[in-house]
């Protein structure tokens, strides 16, 4: 792993942008991200935070978006890096924050500075830290969905696959159209639920056809959408964030599975 110039400790100081969905729905993903970053030699902090503003941004509310973006910028500007277990939220900061402040040179400079040091988790590990393997075991086949923002805004495609290839016991089976949208699209899934339902139906069929018992991806929104569709269709596919597998933290039940059953199973 490369050594990076940084704060007093000599370790890169990373601010974890945990994202709303991970914060609220699945904190274990955040802790998996922390473990991966710490194992890779980073100091990780998670300052008090809320939303990056993407829901407002995509609903056309630039004013609210700017307010929220200013908070994020002020909260995270002190770190060497900002890392997020989400291509969508990292993409919001990296690609869209500078655009938000086009007419405000002062804030645009701050937004650009933050954008330049903000990364999606797996691409940070691989592209910035030079990590090529993780210490994890996961038995069985997995298939991987490329979430749109990560893939097309940040170029996240090979990085998670490279890291997964180092997981003991794991084989990656590619599904058809892994790069096609799952139909989540934030508020789209609610505003145009019928269309979203049809798109995620096609995705679920591709997941099922791949035949792997586990589905992984790097964005919790997509994962909840796909997990919800698979469970509605009675498909026994375990759905997890890729960070959980890479961090060897798969004790928590998969997305949408009961907690109590898992607790019972864990007791000898």
């Amino acid at each position, binding site marked *: 792993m490369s050594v990076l110039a940084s704060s007093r400790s000599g370790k890169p100081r990373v601010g974890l942008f*945990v994202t709303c969905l*991970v*914060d*609220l*729905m699945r*904190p*274990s993903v*955040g*802790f998996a991200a922390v473990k991966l970053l710490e194992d890779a030699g980073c100091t990780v*902090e*998670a*300052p*008090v*935070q*809320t939303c990056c*503003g993407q*829901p*407002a*941004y*995509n*609903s*056309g*509310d*630039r004013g*609210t978006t700017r*307010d929220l973006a200013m908070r994020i910028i002020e909260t995270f500007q002190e770190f060497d890096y900002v890392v997020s277990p989400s291509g969508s939220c990292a993409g919001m900061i990296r690609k869209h924050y500078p655009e938000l402040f086009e007419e405000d040179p002062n804030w645009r400079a701050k937004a650009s500075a933050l954008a330049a040091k903000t990364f999606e988790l797996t691409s940070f590990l691989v592209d910035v830290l030079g990590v090529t393997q993780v210490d994890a075991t996961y038995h069985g086949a997995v298939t991987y969905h490329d979430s*749109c*923002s990560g893939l*097309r805004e940040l170029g996240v495609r090979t990085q998670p696959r490279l890291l997964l290839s180092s997981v003991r016991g794991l084989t990656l089976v590619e599904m058809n159209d892994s790069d*096609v*949208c799952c*139909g989540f*699209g934030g508020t*789209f*899934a*609610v*505003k*145009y*639920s*019928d*269309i*979203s*339902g*049809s*798109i*995620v139906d*096609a995705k679920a069929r591709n997941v099922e056809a791949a035949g792997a018992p586990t589905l992984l991806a790097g964005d919790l929104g997509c994962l*909840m959408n796909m*997990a*919800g*569709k698979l*469970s*509605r269709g009675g498909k026994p596919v375990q759905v997890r964030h890729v960070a959980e597998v890479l961090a060897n933290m798969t004790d928590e039940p998969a*997305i*949408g*599975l*009961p*907690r*109590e*059953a898992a607790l019972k199973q864990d007791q000898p």
Partner: protein
Amino acid sequence: MTVHTTSPQFKQNAARALHDPQLQKALNNVKQGFIDKRQAAADKLPEFEALRDSARDIKNHTLEHLDLYLEAYEQKVKASGGHVHFARNADEAREIILSICREAGARTVTKGKSMISEEIGINHYLEANGIKPVETDLGEYIIQLRNELPSHIIAPAVHLNATQVEQDFRRVHTHLDAKRDLSEPVQLLTEARAVLRERFLAADVGITGANFLVAETGTSIIVTNEGNGDLTQILPRTHIVLASIEKLVPTLEDASQLLRVLARSATGQEMSVYTTFSTGPRRSGDADGPENYHVVLIDNGRSAMLGTSFEEMLRCIRCGACMNHCPVYHAVGGHAYGWVYPGPMGAVLTPSLIGVDKAGHLPNASTFCGRCESVCPVRIPLPKLMRHWREREFERHLTPASVRSGLSLWSFFAKRPALYRLATRAAMATLGFAGRRRGRFSWLPLAKGWTKHRDFPAPQGETFQARWQRERKGGTA
């Protein structure tokens, strides 16, 4: 507005499309055909990405000097013996076309595929004035028989299956043997070829669109695979070219750059079968070709897009790659969009042309997956432009009240981190507890749209920030 729109009923249109098994079957052809072919064509040409940049730059340059290139083009067309007409809007364009047809004493008019002709609704207008328009592109011919709009800008009948086409041919071609075999697509093609051959030879006027207009030479360019556009323009005595003003390019070299990305992006061909460069009417000594050559340059809202954030949309060369790669288009097809232009390019262009009050759904009905932008040969940032429309709607209070109130509730908390932490901690604890046995909800208040089609996974219970504070003693908080 020129052609009736059902864009305001986008949701109902989409619901109908999703429940139409014939349509769903036909849409599979889009998913399977175009995408792999485009990718293969792009992979075979190492310069493809550089050509996309070049295509974008040529269009940008032309748009920045559009007035001057239009003047140069007009001068060249006149010098070659052709006529140039300017139309501010659809009404003017239709009147100009009708008067040219009348002057030519036209009874029937053949037509090459042209989206601008759909935009101005010329067929119905000519018919109402006693002139019979005949679409000659196979797909356009089929949808004309059905009195439909195209559902795709390069494959107008992509929403239909062969059996539907067979039924239409039997209904309309009543002069043919009722017992003929039409079970194979090739038999349908052969029949259309024979029927249309007579129309080509009998037509008094031929109307085509233009993929590009060349300022350097006063040339109009059409691109087809069937050859119908050529028969439309060389057989009748009068050829009318309809083109919107943004079709200009400076030179033949510039046109060649754009042609290198057009077919590859559209159908995955290295080059379309017929690329035709027409300059003026027949020359002395010529044995064939039109005696009269007219160009109708149509603005219909374009000049007002220049200098705005939607100017980039005027780069569009109508290849259809954006819709070929769009998950929403794949799900609902083109007719759901409710006007002439479907898919991502339609979601940006339609509000410009018919008003965002009518077409407001279109730029919202996107997941912003970005696949359209990633394949656009002229690199139009389609999601960004759709977002611009959403901003206009928000400013004009056209955003639905439910979305606005949900959003303001969310941002109220998001701007108050302490309150946010309290509220989310309580909410997630409740939801987590309620969902602990099943791990998911098949129904939730306020999330009906979600749970109609999929379960809502239960949260783990404690929020990340609560646990972080507990375990790591608060981080920097």
